[in-house]
């Protein structure tokens, strides 16, 4: 489980007895390295999937996932004890994605000032890499709305949980969800017409 990668079962296997998430987080807070490995084995897939959707499968998905688990290790002592820590990890992911977005925005602003062109808020790569109608449509809405929508509709987080995770008022979450759905539906309709 912890470190004997060569001899341990596949980290993706799901049929081993599980330590409850709160206990696992407690062990992690105590500095037990193995707990991080177990947490990773348990939640890598959903977290990676969330990050891939939120970033439209950006090139740095694995780096982001990596950062999410390290951030989780750092703040494990503050875990609130919910039976499943998936929403908590999703919250961490959302915060890291927001920081990444802000950094990326600043980077684009610097680039645009150097080249005397107007910065665009959206990363152009997702549109190029989109592989399906929904993915393409998702790539066309802003990252903030996209992440909020995914947290609600895919991860099943309540609006209050999303607001807490993102550090925004719940009204902002409702607004983003409404706008995201509207834009997504419009984008899908346009895709159908074209």
């Amino acid at each position, binding site marked *: 489980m912890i470190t004997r990668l060569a001899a341990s079962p596949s980290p993706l296997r799901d049929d081993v007895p599980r330590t409850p998430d709160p206990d696992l987080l407690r062990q992690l807070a105590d500095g037990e390295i*193995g707990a991080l490995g177990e947490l990773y084995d348990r939640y890598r897939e959903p977290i990676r999937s969330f990050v891939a959707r939120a970033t439209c499968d950006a090139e740095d998905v694995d780096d982001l996932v990596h950062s999410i688990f390290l951030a989780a290790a750092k703040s494990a002592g503050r875990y609130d004890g919910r039976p499943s820590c998936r929403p908590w990890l999703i919250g961490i992911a959302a915060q890291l994605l927001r920081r990444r977005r802000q950094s990326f925005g600043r980077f684009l602003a610097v680039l645009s000032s150097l080249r005397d062109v107007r910065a665009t808020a959206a990363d152009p790569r997702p549109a190029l890499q989109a592989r399906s109608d929904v993915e393409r449509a998702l790539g066309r809405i802003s990252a903030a709305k996209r992440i909020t929508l995914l947290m609600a509709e895919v991860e099943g987080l309540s609006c209050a949980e999303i607001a807490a995770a993102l550090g925004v008022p719940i009204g902002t979450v409702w607004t983003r969800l409404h706008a995201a759905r509207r834009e997504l539906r419009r984008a899908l309709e346009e895709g159908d017409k074209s």
Partner: protein
Amino acid sequence: VSATPCHRLFEAEAMRDGRLTGAERARFERHVAGCPACSIEVRALEALAESLRAEFPDHAVADEVRARRERTRLMAAFDRALLAPEQSRNVRHWLLWPAAVSALVVAILLVLPRVRRPAEPPTHPLSAVVHADSTSVWSERRDGDREKVVLERGALWIHVNHSSGEGRLLVVLPDGELEDIGTTFTVSADDGQTTRVAVQEGHVVLRIRGQAAIALGPGDTWIPDPRPVASARASAPAADPAPSARLDALERSTQPTLPPSPRVASPTASDSSVDFRAAMAALDIGDNHQAAAGFATFLAKHPHDPRAEDAAYLRVIALQRSGDSAGMKRAAVEYLRRYPAGFRQAEVESLSR
């Protein structure tokens, strides 16, 4: 499909987002049942969510090699983060070195020509008291910064006062060695082998040739494997035919702590997590000797625990931090012996050289 617009259409989304609760929600649900437009809207919102959930099948799931690689990377990063404070302190120490060396050289150049000091007696960085029984055959010698007590047979009661210096004491046994880590303990040997070790205070690490190192803490008593405990108890007086009065008293005081059978007995509960956390806590506060002993204890008590490899690795790190390079190398070799394909094999291999 077309439907007549409804002024309550927006409530479909409000219900989905949890903005409608209780009676409001119940009323809207009743309305949906009879309103084609709202019914379509509710289904459309659900279909949108379904399409989102159905998209992006995790294409990395099947890529186990990639998952393993990322896992390895994560664990290595966590290790680095775990060790970072110590490393940064070390970096700061390195930055201070040039200034310290320069100041020392200047001081020597200024002071040396003016002062002719009488030769100072050799310092003894370690203060140890050894009580031996009348039949014991033992000697002492100094090897670098390490005091060595060589026990051929008999029983010794040893108290080491580490507050007087930084030196270490090693008890050389007929079949191994016993390393002291700030301690009061008794050790007995007979017929070319160690017959008993009992620790009253502090910690020792016992290394019997051909066996894994064993850390012993306060109250721990070690007797060799082949002898049943009952016979070991019975043979104790034979091994210690005439110990000193103090030795007798200590031996008697440790007798009740002897367990019925385990090789290493501790009065504390053998909860693996407790042991591991205790060692981690020592490592966290910089008590590296204690941490190394704690991890050794953990390994001895819980060799099959999933954290055993971590403990073996962290023991190496604790010894490295404590400045015990010889102990670190031995721990590194022990790690590699136990985990030849271990997660930290490459790093430990470099430390073992």
